[in-house]
């Protein structure tokens, strides 16, 4: 029955939807932002880990001179401090939110109990403890990242 039905528009936003939380403007859905950030941070870390293993292999591959030159030579803010600062920020978020996701996805808890619809007609999982955890994650993330900045840029 395909002939005569005209051209069909595929209409899938594709990968964009999972890196851009504003592909849709879903109201009351911070979980979506959390998902996008988790995905972006995961992706970045998976890329970074390759570079990281390569770089930290310097002493063994090339020798300690190269390592010392890289690390200790320059004073103040360098690529290394910046790198660590951003890596830590990414990791803090991914790790904290990962704990929340583990609770929700792996242990199946923290998503409320099924209930019968009553006003204000909000799905139980959207007001369950995962939501509070999510806000906690954001707050802790901010605190930890600021702390990291303080430590890294201190000297």
């Amino acid at each position, binding site marked *: *029955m395909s002939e*005569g*039905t*005209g051209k069909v528009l595929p209409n899938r936003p594709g990968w964009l939807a999972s890196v851009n939380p504003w592909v849709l403007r879903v109201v009351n859905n911070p979980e979506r932002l959390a998902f996008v950030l988790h995905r972006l941070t995961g992706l970045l870390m998976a890329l970074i880990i390759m570079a990281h293993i390569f770089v930290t292999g310097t002493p063994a591959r090339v020798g300690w001179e190269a390592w010392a030159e890289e690390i200790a030579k320059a004073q103040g803010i360098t690529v290394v401090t910046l790198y660590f600062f951003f890596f830590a920020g990414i990791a803090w978020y991914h790790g904290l939110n990962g704990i929340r996701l583990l609770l929700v996805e792996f242990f199946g808890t923290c998503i409320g109990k099924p209930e*019968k*619809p009553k*006003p204000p*007609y909000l799905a139980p999982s959207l007001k369950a403890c995962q939501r509070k955890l999510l806000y906690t994650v954001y707050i802790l993330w901010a605190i930890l990242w600021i702390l990291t900045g303080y430590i890294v840029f201190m000297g």
Partner: protein
Amino acid sequence: MPAVETIEHDIVIVGTGIAGLRAAIEIKRKYGDKLDVGLLSKIHIMRSHSVSAEGGTAAVLYPEEGDSFALHAWDTIKGSDFLADQDAVWLFVKLMPEEIRLLEHWGLPWSRRPDGRIAQRPFGGHSHPRATFAADKTGFFEMQTLYNKLLEYDNWERYDEWFVTNIVVEDGAYKGLYAINMRDGKLYYFKSKAAIIAAGGGGRLYNFTTYAHTVTGDGYAMAFRAGIPIKDPEFIQFHPTGLVPSGILITEGARGEGGYLINNKGERFMLRKECAPTKGELAPRDIVSRCEMREILEGRGFVDEVSGLGYVKLDLTHLGEEKINERLPAVREIAIRYAGVDPVEEPIPVRPVAHYTMGGIHTDIYYRVLDETGRWIRGLFAAGEVAASSVHGANRLGSNSTAECLTSGRITGILAAEYALRQREAPTASPERHAREEEWVWGLLKRESGTPAYEIRRKLRNAMGEYFYVFRDGDGMKTALSIIKELRRKAREEMYVEDKSKIYNTDLQAALETLNLLDAALAAVSAGLNRTESRGAHYRLDYPKRDDENWLKHTLVLRSGEDDVRITYWPVAITTWKPVERKY
């Protein structure tokens, strides 16, 4: 224009509401892959109007707790104002309990009693709480369960969004039907050994109705055009509690759970002597609607500012939040969303609303479609609201309709299957018929200007709401009839479809539906004008009394010429109880 292609099935089912789906399941679960079934629906098959049914489905589940078949039968017959065929009623009440439990097995989440068994609630006109319910989404859950159950089986084809235009009856037998595939805009001929028409009611004859936008009397109109008699179309039920201003239904379950109707003085007017002093709000719908309408007409109602509709109020506030959330969650949601009223805190604005067509395609008690002499039109069955076997007579009791959909689906399923198994070859329509059908459908696209269908439809609905509502009289119905005839002429000569494209041409569909509405309206108003008595839902101010002497009989309306009808009669089967005066 494209040529008519043919699609063949053993059995074709038109309409996939509760009735159509139940029939399909009966065929599949009893006959498996032996028969191949085509299911046609003008919308996605599980979106049929039956999903809107809210309150419950009647069945005698607990004979050990006081209920009995005889009591259910008596309630139904008394509710029908003794126009029901009593043998049909008996068959119906006996088949019901098994239906409820089968649905339960297939997954329906019926509401439960603390002991784990299925719960039931009181309903208007029933003298025992026997409306089986799943919160207040009964019809929705029934549709969902039936649809899901059907997915278990193979060898059936779904035709979602295929609009059936006409059924073919030639030489007193069924010879196939025509449908437009909305998706590619072609006309197809369906050839089958048997067909079940389950195309639902005609609620959209009115502006203020509980019905979905897609319920446009197509089934009646198709039968009418094919020369099949329409039985008792004058009996149109007005439900007492349509939400103002949209017409969305507030289920009778709301009164079943203990809701009151109050006028602008705060009185429970249903308890007055002339209304229903014993049953009060739980009297049958025709009685409650009339009492309500009187309050409104005599100035004891309220008036909605935006729509100008008069109304009374349905008070649920005394039920308490918990009970409302438990038993009537959808009522609460609907009232808040569509009227901005929370029934926990405030009474809901309601008024009588067009709700059900008791009449329909003339069938016997086994839902075989009959011609005016009582001969079966071979191969053709009708089920659900579109059929009139007459279980409901002049007035349907709440929760008996989804029930009838189930039993009629089951009966027609078995009969159609057995019939199809015994047929070697599916009959075909004559080639001229193809040409006529093409002309009828595509002819609409030819006109380049004129009156859009929507305008005709609007005028028709206004006329029906004005002259063929809860109260009727001879002059009013005559006026309505002349308006309908004028609109029919207009539709034939001037109706114009702007959209010329093939794919999803809903403009064309609206035009075809308008033609169907005009047919259904013609049959209903003619029959109403003809019946000079008041019975059940048909209440005439000029003949306010029931007249068993002359009118204890069914009307059969047949088409005659372009705009006229011929009326004959059909006896009522009175096998158990004598008609008596109906008091509640």
